[in-house]
């Protein structure tokens, strides 16, 4: 007891009597502990945030999907958007019944992911419709105005195609398209129009309009699901505009991020992006060449505003712009271009003018909430299917508004999804079998289906062309082999009947995830269902690995720092031991055992470790706590998902502090191992002879 006290006293005093060495070593240990506390706290917080992001947005706690899948389930994309072969669970109701019976399961939500093409009326479609009406009414002035517009659009399209031509080796198709465009641009077409208005409008409708569609196609990443149950089960879901799809109704809810990023008017999008640059990123036009380049592009996009204006509106706006831009002259086109030349001085005023005066006169989105759009799919059987679906509203995942990953999912009712996906009814299966028999194929894979079933791309193309032809702009019907019922009602009980590709399982208690996973798998196996269960981390694909990666990187970094610290501490301690040879030799001579010397050094280093560790942990705890109040801003939009929002609010727990202490104790003991061994080898005889 007394010995221990003496050792402790000696160790303690030795700490202070070898200040230089101990301050160096102490700072290293302090820094190491600080880093462990900070690093593990932030990581744990990211872990929790990401768990929330993933489990509360799309994944749920567990996911089930077919054992026959050829690709692993990747809810946030595997890099092959929509092309993963995940197989199908043909009878979701059965899966649901089996899974729901497992204790601890709160909800089972059917899902299916695919990428569809969406079509909506384009500016050209609107112009053609105006032309038709003007021709019917016989108003030559309006016909001329619209004709001018259509020819300008054709010119624009021509420029686009010429650019594309440079990149292609086979010009045949482009040349065909260019011929159509040139005909519309030419005077002859318009001269003939009054004589045969119907034929002329039809030519525009069937020949020119498809070229625009082709060049302005949009892909819609769709998550088919029981939308009502989805909204109730996923805590991060939040309706932004419009309304929830009523029960028993078909339709889609668009992700606000997708809606803003892809469907919003380009000029409006430009104004918003520049405002974010200025307000959130603190950029200035004057010092940022990229921002200036973007302004140049915006100026070139002036037609996105002017093409939408009726002649009267154009007059009105031109007058306002002349008043707003002192000394400005010229046509509406020139005025808008001038207006779009943004700089640091005029930005705020022009932003306001744009949204107050211009935005209300144009369509801000390709289509609005409440409108119907045509969704077209290449089904797995290789057929083209289309459906008209109402856009009921937009939604977001709370905190993930800016995340690319969370923005990838648009919700669609499961019934429409099944129609478009194509493998639902026995009828359709029989039909497919028929087609397959005709073509002489046993199994038609998704990749080869197009070519094999329709004899190559040309057939599909042909079908596509037939598919065009908007008769009315409110509900556009596309041709094709199948036509799904638009805006049809359905019996909500049918939602569970039929296929699902995957399903999310929400548990009562996430802490018992592994246990539940086993139980669900066992139940499915026992029921003879070919369905596999994965946890949300696995289901989220590459994203789930990111945290693992970040963790590995951090641990390697901490490992390296500790290794360096270890070497430095070791060397310093060896040197310090050498300086104390006389003292240690004396202790040995007067009867101290070698083990006592070892204990003394161990105790010294441990004390230093705990002392600097306490300081480092306190510092780390303090920093994490203050970051927990102010939040760490996500350095990139990609990280918002990991942070479960634009800022991460980390919190340090006892575990993090203990981890810091444990690490420093281990490092201290490792670092002193060799010096202590050297010290025990010091012979008592060195005390006898005065230092040489």
């Amino acid at each position: 007891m007394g010995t221990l006290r003496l050792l402790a006293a000696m160790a303690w005093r030795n700490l202070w009597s070898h200040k230089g060495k101990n301050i160096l070593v102490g700072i290293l240990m302090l820094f190491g502990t600080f880093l462990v506390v900070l690093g593990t706290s932030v990581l744990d917080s990211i872990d929790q945030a990401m768990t929330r992001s993933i489990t509360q947005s799309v994944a749920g706690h567990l996911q089930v999907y077919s054992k026959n899948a050829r690709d692993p389930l990747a809810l946030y994309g595997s890099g092959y958007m929509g092309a993963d072969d995940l197989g199908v669970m043909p009878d979701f109701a059965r899966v649901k019944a089996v899974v729901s019976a497992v204790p601890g399961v709160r909800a089972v939500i059917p899902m299916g992911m695919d990428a569809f093409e969406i079509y909506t009326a384009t500016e050209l479609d609107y112009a053609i419709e105006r032309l038709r009406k003007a021709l019917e009414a016989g108003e030559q002035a309006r016909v001329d105005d619209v004709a001018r517009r259509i020819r300008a659009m054709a010119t624009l399209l021509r420029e686009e195609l010429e650019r594309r031509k440079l990149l292609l080796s086979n010009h045949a198709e482009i040349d065909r398209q260019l011929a159509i465009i040139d005909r519309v641009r030419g005077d002859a077409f318009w001269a003939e129009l009054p004589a045969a208005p119907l034929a002329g409008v039809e030519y525009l409708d069937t020949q020119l309009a498809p070229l625009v569609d082709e060049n302005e196609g949009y892909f819609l990443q769709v998550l088919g699901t029981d939308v009502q149950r989805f909204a109730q089960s996923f805590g991060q879901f939040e309706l932004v505009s419009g309304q929830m799809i009523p029960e028993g109704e078909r339709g889609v809810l668009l992700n606000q991020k997708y809606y803003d990023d892809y469907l919003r008017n380009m000029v409006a999008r430009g104004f918003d992006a520049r405002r974010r640059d200025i307000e959130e990123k603190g950029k200035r036009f004057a010092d940022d060449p990229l921002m200036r380049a973007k302004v140049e592009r915006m100026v070139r996009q002036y037609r996105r505003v002017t093409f939408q204006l009726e002649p009267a509106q154009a007059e009105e706006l031109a007058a306002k712009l002349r008043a707003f831009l002192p000394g400005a002259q010229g046509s509406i086109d020139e005025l808008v271009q001038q207006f779009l030349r943004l700089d640091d001085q005029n930005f705020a005023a022009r932003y306001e003018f744009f949204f107050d005066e211009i935005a209300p006169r144009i369509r801000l989105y390709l289509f609005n909430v409440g409108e119907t759009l045509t969704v077209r799919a290449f089904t797995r059987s290789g057929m083209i299917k289309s459906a008209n679906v109402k856009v009921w509203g937009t939604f977001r995942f709370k905190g993930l508004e800016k995340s690319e990953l969370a923005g990838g999912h648009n919700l669609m009712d499961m019934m429409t999804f099944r129609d478009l996906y194509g493998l639902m009814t026995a009828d359709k299966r029989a039909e497919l079998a028929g087609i397959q028999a005709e073509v002489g194929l046993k199994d038609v894979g998704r990749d080869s289906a197009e070519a094999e079933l329709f004899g190559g791309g040309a057939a599909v193309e042909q079908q596509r062309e037939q598919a065009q032809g908007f008769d009315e702009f409110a509900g556009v019907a596309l041709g094709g082999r199948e036509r799904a019922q638009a805006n049809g009602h359905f019996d909500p009980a049918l939602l569970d009947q039929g296929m699902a590709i995957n399903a999310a399982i929400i548990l009562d208690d996430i802490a018992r995830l592994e246990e539940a996973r086993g139980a669900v798998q066992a139940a499915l196996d026992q029921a003879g269902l070919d369905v596999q269960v994965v946890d949300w981390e696995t289901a989220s694909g590459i994203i789930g690995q990111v945290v693992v990666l970040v963790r590995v990187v951090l641990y390697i970094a901490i490992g390296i720092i500790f290794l360096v610290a270890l070497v430095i501490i070791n060397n310093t301690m060896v040197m310090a031991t050498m300086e104390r040879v006389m003292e240690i030799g004396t202790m040995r001579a007067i009867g101290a055992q070698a083990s006592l010397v070892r204990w003394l050094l161990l105790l010294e280093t441990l004390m230093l470790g705990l002392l600097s560790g306490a300081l480092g942990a306190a510092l780390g705890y303090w920093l994490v706590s203050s970051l927990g109040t102010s939040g760490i801003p996500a350095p990139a939009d990609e990280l918002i998902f990991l942070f479960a929002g634009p800022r991460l609010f980390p919190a340090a727990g006892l575990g993090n502090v203990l981890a810091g202490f444990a690490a420093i104790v281990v490092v201290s003991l490792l670092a002193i191992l060799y010096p202590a061994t050297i010290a025990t080898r010091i012979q008592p005889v060195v005390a006898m002879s005065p230092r040489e």
Partner: protein
Amino acid sequence: MEAMVELRKVSKEYPLGKLTVRALAEMDLCIGKGEFTVVAGPSGSGKTTLLNMVGCVDVPSSGEVLIEGQPTSRLKDRARTKLRLHKLGFIFQTFNLIPVLTAEQNVEFPLLLQGELSRAERRARVREMLELVGLGALVRQRPNEMSGGQRQRVAIARALVSLPHIVLADEPTANLDTATGLTIIELMKKLNRERQTTFIFSTHDPRVMEHARRIVRIVDGRIEGDATCGGSA
């Protein structure tokens, strides 16, 4: 006279490059209980080497060292350390106090290693020793706050506190001025008289030698004169 220390044909050789230096050459020596012995000889004659052998801090190349009749050359490090702790006291030329400990703690150190006395007993013993060497007032001082003479007194107290049978002092006065050196010698003599502790100390200072009761002279690792127990006493 009872033999306290006995050397039988003890040789000690040090390797020095390709040569070997023979610091002790088949030395026989007997020192009796309660003797106050000075080992004298010129520098490099082997005094320190001899004391190292007697103090069991080093092993002879050949021959045997017996402490109170017990052979020591084959002892393991632990046993040798234990023997030093319980039977021997050391006074060093450079005092060798533990710098971070106070005078009192330095003196207490061997008692703590022995672990036989209670705290109160230890304190009493330490005080007694410090009184004995005339340092009762300096208990809380650290070595660097004391003069050379004071430090050597603390060292003497530390050597004696465990009531060793033999006290070894290698040139204890070499780093002290003459007057202080003489008082230290006087102190050691007094302790030898009062406690019958066997003292062996080395010196090459003729004035110090005057105080010795027995002088063992060595030249080139050999004893000149009487080496038997109680020799010249």
